[in-house]
């Protein structure tokens, strides 16, 4: 299971740290990627991950309304909505992309979100982006 995570520097990445400090079991195939803000995640990065065979992409940022840059995650939400729409239109499962809002203190929640996402992906059809 390969899950690529785009984690916002101020909240979700810190939450991943917190989860580690709390010794929470997390999905082993998770590849965290630090981004300055969830609003900085271009759809191209998400598409690249899916095309290169990631089973899932997790985009996580601060809770809505508490973005460090005030409105970055609202913009991220629109972008991810467009990506999901495109994936759905072309018959690629939009469930491979998950968007979550997690604050820095919510280590336990981060681990839960990640593990549930991994569990869900196991039931879904495998991402065949890389299998030509």
């Amino acid at each position, binding site marked *: 299971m390969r899950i690529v995570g785009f984690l916002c520097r101020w909240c979700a990445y810190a939450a991943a740290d917190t989860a580690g400090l709390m010794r929470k079991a997390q999905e082993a195939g998770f590849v965290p990627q630090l981004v300055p803000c969830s609003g900085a995640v271009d759809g*191209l990065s998400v598409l690249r991950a899916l095309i290169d065979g990631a089973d899932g992409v997790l985009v996580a940022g601060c809770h809505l309304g508490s973005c460090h840059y005030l409105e970055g995650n609202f913009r991220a939400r629109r972008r991810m909505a467009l990506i999901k729409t495109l994936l759905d239109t072309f018959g690629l499962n939009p469930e491979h992309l998950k968007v979550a809002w997690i604050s820095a203190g919510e280590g336990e929640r981060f681990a839960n979100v990640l593990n549930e996402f991994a569990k869900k992906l196991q039931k879904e059809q495998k991402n065949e*982006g890389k299998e030509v």
Partner: protein
Amino acid sequence: MRAKKFEDIDDLVLGLNKLAEEGRIEGFCVRDESGRPVVLRRLEGTIFPKRYVMSAAPLVARWSTSRLPLVAFLLPCETAAFVELVKLKQAMLDNLTVVSLVCEGLAGRDGEERVACKVCRRRIAQSTDIHIAFGDGVVVAAATEKGEELLDALGGQDLEWEPPTAGTQAYEAFIAEKRSKMQGWEGLRSLFAECILCHNCMRVCPVCACAHCYFESQKAQGSGAVWEARIKSDAAEFAREVLWFHLGRAFHMSFMCVGCGLCGDACPAEVDVFGFFAVASDAARKRFAYEAGRDVDEPLPLSVFERDELDDVG
């Protein structure tokens, strides 16, 4: 809608040229023999292209920043593209008067009617200064104050005119048919199997207008992933680059797509890029209730947000 009727196109040309001599109009955007857009001081030659080979929107956008009083004769899809360029702050409406054709569909490079024109649902521009309709004489109708000003300066016989309504059945059927053909990774791969990643569809696109394109940047190309794949003839790697380019472009500007179909015409490998973009733009349009070229004041969907929306995303 206030309109004027001319018996012949020459009467209108005469009137406009008189305004040009008086200095009220500095230039006109028309076409040369091959259908390419040009900006001339006097109105002459072909006003609208016989064959649709190139969009005039980028050229008019560049001229519009000069703020000269220009009159641009545009097709409805070009008008919509121009409106999108105004929203992208690459064009100005200050002194420009857009005259938009009530379009009946055009021929492509090969002289046959284009697929995009057959299924077009934008035969009448939604945001323009002046509509122009050919048929029994030439009808010129003003849609804005700027348009009325120009109309008042022209001769012709007064009448009331309403733009005809266009059906969308052919379009809906086209979308449904194309969409069923491009499902899943396998469907997309076979769709783009012939793509050679020449970026022609991107360059010809009137709304794909970033001055510095990410796909042409050092980061996307110079890293060598594409060229390495070509040299090694790694078909699988290359196929992924192709998918990334097209899906990425769909993400960047599908909601701005005006359905002109030039991307499909420009493709040397005859990939159905237009079909792909029509399907993508239809989905994006419905998701954000946004219509490209509908209104200059309507913001681009990715440039604004609401606090309470899209609860299903995250």
